[in-house]
């Protein structure tokens, strides 16, 4: 029985580590219940006492973890940005085209003037350099936006939990 308890303890540690693969929100909400369920299933498998049953249990579990992690991660990525409040969604929606327009009209040319100084550039070179800077700033903005979007709910949850 002591050996069985030890096996459950070690199995729990492994499963607990696997739970960290799930998205943060999902983990906070369901990890304790999943761990409890795992404990029950693990106990059932060990009670049967056959190695084949335990191996089959772990194979099924590994497949379950892999499939559900991919599914939950995909779901998290596809979740609409403004799911919590419609206003957040509208602001995000307006923010993107206005940033792109501001980038093309102002940021690209300003940066070109700053970099090239007062040197007079032919019009075609000026537009090419300006376009290059616009694309570079746009790419950086997209990356930053994705990072902020992904971090926003996590930060909010941390604030809520620590309050």
């Amino acid at each position, binding site marked *: 029985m002591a050996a069985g308890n030890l096996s459950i303890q070690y199995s729990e540690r492994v499963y607990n580590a696997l739970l960290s693969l799930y998205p943060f929100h999902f983990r906070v909400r369901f990890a304790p219940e999943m761990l*409890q*369920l795992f404990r029950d*299933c693990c106990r059932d498998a060990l009670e049967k006492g056959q190695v084949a049953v335990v191996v089959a249990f772990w194979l099924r579990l590994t497949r*379950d973890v892999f499939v559900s992690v991919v599914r939950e991660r995909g779901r998290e990525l596809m979740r609409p940005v403004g799911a919590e409040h419609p206003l957040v969604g509208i602001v995000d929606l307006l923010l993107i085209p206005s940033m792109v327009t501001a980038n093309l009209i102002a940021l690209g040319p300003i940066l070109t003037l700053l970099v090239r100084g007062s040197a007079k550039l032919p019009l075609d070179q000026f537009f090419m350099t300006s376009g290059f800077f616009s694309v570079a700033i746009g790419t950086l903005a997209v990356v930053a936006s994705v990072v902020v979007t992904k971090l926003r709910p996590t930060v909010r949850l941390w604030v809520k939990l620590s309050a």
Partner: protein
Amino acid sequence: MAKNFLPLTPAVFHILLTLADGEAHGYAMMQEVARRSGGTVRLGPGTLYGAISRLLEDQLIEESEERPDPDMDDSRRRYYRLTKLGGQVLAAETERLSDLVKAARSTKVVRKLKPV
């Protein structure tokens, strides 16, 4: 409204079917689904709680505060029950599957064949 949720996945259908009999926690659901399906549908913790998460979000099930027997039970377990919408979705899916079976049985091939 209920038809917007159709068709249900086998896992979700089995979970709703299990909760139609009364509230249950994850382990009870898992066992009942395996028993009801004759062992053909075996839900792992990830699949089960993924489905529960979606069902909670769609308000087809809700968490129950009551404990069927508080003395006999682990307080860490969470119980879930079917909502009114969940019941309607289950009924609509059952109807859809029933119509499908009826349509299949009306074909010559299915009438002649018998399961092995």
